């Protein structure tokens, strides 16, 4: 394997899956555990003085040999302590060990995006901690939910597949969920299609599905097919859907011939089991290519505001965002170093997607040493105190061996709109 890998890591209650950027194909590829099987069971064990994970650990658990732990993901979320043989471990530590073992093939990791069914501040902190444990800088770790992974996956597909709306159906042995990717209507100052989102549009618990495992009961399968077909018709009603994706173990047995006809009617449909890890890998590719091209994903948990500074970046003058819409507030902290051309005021532009208003705040640099030869260096720090409050700090950090730092420091606390309700105001 080459160095500096760019990865997507899908993790849920049962399995994990790894997609990696393949330079030769310029596309993500998914790591195969065995032929056509990408899923690594999320089980870790200790046997004969060595750690084992995945299939091997699951096999060991089946024959009750050694010591194994399952449900690791759930237990790590609840910060449980687990006994493994003689020793007691933190579930988070065991999860980190599992991730480390599963990534052994990837010597050096440049960027990793974890994707989980849902995410929040605790999940983000936990997985960033796990990544950090592997020696990856926290700024090179991203955590996103499945909806965002679907969106990132779609952005990298041919435009005609998401020209209108795009549907995703997820099915396991209990339920079917339907998601719809759509473009958001923001005010006229932003180009159409700049912002997209994924809504969960249906979520049905189907008793019939239970009868599809392990052996298909023909009669119950027919019922399940009919229920699924009705669900599709309902979801697609009055909508132009460009493409359909089916994912999850539940679609493995081909029990839905009638539904398939509706799914494929006038559009392309895809069946696969590695969409989320590939979507996560696409996020890593996007982050490492330094080109934030393409639409921005938004959901109700994300920031609707942007804070920008007038800055020259790579020779181009413009408003450079230090806080961007489409970020989670708990992941939006940042630090930059900037040179000052002179010591006049710094202007901060605050924009909101939920309204057309634009605010300009000023920071006075009175008290800064007055040098005009590109040797005034400031550290700009963004720190979110909560989802609505952000503190900006500008600090003189000196200029190497030429000029020592002074005690100049100025702060500005900015109140933002938060996330409540604003997202819903956009159709």
């Amino acid at each position, binding site marked *: 394997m080459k160095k500096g890998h760019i990865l997507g890591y899908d993790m849920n209650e049962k399995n994990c899956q790894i997609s990696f950027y393949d330079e030769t194909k310029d596309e993500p590829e998914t790591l195969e555990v065995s032929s056509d099987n990408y899923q690594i069971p999320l089980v870790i064990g200790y046997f004969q003085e060595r750690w084992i994970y995945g299939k091997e650990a699951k096999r060991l658990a089946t024959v009750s040999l050694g010591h194994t732990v399952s449900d690791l993901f759930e237990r790590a979320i609840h910060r449980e302590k687990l006994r493994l043989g003689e020793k007691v471990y933190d579930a988070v530590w065991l999860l980190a060990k599992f991730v480390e073992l599963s990534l052994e093939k990837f010597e050096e990791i440049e960027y990793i995006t974890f994707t989980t069914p849902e995410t929040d501040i605790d999940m983000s902190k936990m997985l960033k901690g796990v990544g950090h444990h592997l020696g990856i800088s926290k700024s090179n770790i991203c955590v996103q939910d499945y909806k965002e992974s679907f969106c990132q996956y779609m952005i990298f597909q041919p435009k005609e597949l998401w020209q209108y709306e795009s549907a995703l159906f997820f099915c396991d042995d209990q339920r079917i969920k339907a998601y719809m990717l759509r473009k958001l209507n923001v005010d006229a100052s932003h180009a159409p299609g700049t912002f997209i989102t994924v809504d969960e549009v249906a979520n049905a618990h189907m008793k019939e599905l239970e009868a599809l495992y392990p052996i298909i009961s023909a009669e119950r399968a027919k019922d399940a097919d009919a229920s699924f077909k009705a669900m599709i018709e309902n979801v697609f009603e009055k909508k132009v859907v460009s493409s359909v994706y089916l994912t999850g173990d539940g679609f493995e047995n081909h029990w839905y011939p009638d539904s398939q006809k509706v799914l494929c009617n006038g559009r392309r449909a895809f069946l696969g089991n590695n969409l989320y890890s590939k979507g996560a890998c696409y996020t890593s590719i996007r982050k490492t290519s330094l080109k934030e091209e393409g639409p921005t994903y938004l959901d109700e948990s994300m920031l609707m505001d942007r804070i920008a500074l007038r800055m020259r970046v790579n020779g181009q003058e413009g408003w450079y965002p230090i806080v961007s819409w489409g970020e989670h507030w708990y992941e939006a902290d940042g630090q*930059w170093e900037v040179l000052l051309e002179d010591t006049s005021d710094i202007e901060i532009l605050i924009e909101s997607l939920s309204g057309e208003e634009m605010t300009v705040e000023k920071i006075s640099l009175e008290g800064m040493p007055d040098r005009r030869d*590109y040797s005034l260096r400031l550290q700009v720090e963004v720190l979110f105190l909560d989802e609505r409050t952000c503190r900006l700090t500008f600090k003189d950090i000196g200029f190497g061996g030429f000029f020592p730092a002074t005690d100049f420091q100025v702060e500005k606390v900015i109140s933002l709109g938060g996330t409540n309700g604003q997202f819903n105001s956009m159709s």
Partner: protein
Amino acid sequence: MGSLILCHKKRAKSPYEISRVHVKIYTIEELCYYICNNLYLIDHMIMNRRLCDWLQDELGLNGMAETLRKELDQNAPLSEFVLTILRGSVIYAPLEITRIQNLLEQLQNQKEVEKEKYKADTLLKAGEYADAILIYQSVINKEWDESVDRTFYGRIYGCLGTAYGCLFLYEEAAAMYREAYHICERPDMLKAYLYCCQRYLPEEEYVKMLSGNPIFLSVSSLVKEEIEKAKKEVDMDVKDSQLGIWKKEYRV
């Protein structure tokens, strides 16, 4: 409103050291600052493969390092090498680059002795007195360039006087200022010469030196006035013995 310029993220773990001026450089911004403020000092200490390797290994500027290596292979002029670094740093606005380019062109058109002088001037300003003295001396000890005005050499003597003066070596400084005044006949050089003489000569000898020379006498009284004025402004309360210790330490 002034604009901000985003700095490069990478900071070197091992600095690039410019031993002549005892400067350690950690970032591309610092390198550019050093270059722009020391254009006359730029020589093999900057234009070399060690710098290319440092830019690549420590700052990850592979493209810039590669271009600079090619320029070294093709014996490109120093100005081209410098401009590649400044442009590649993307710190400077196009107008600023043009200004530096003009300065470099001026430098290229200068005579060898002028370049040497400016190099020594930069060292003098940076407080590297010993290094500056060596370069000034090498210029005046070589055969003088007749296409250059004699006052140019007079000014070099003046600068040597300043460098020695900064090291409190007043006897040597006086000798240099005397030569400078002899060539340029500038009153400020005479003033500096008499000040240095007053500092190193016993009072009797100094008075003897002034006697019979009305110009020396009038300038000397001017120097005295200025010293008194300066003393009042500084308001020093330091014993002579302590001052002596400081002078010794400073020279070391």
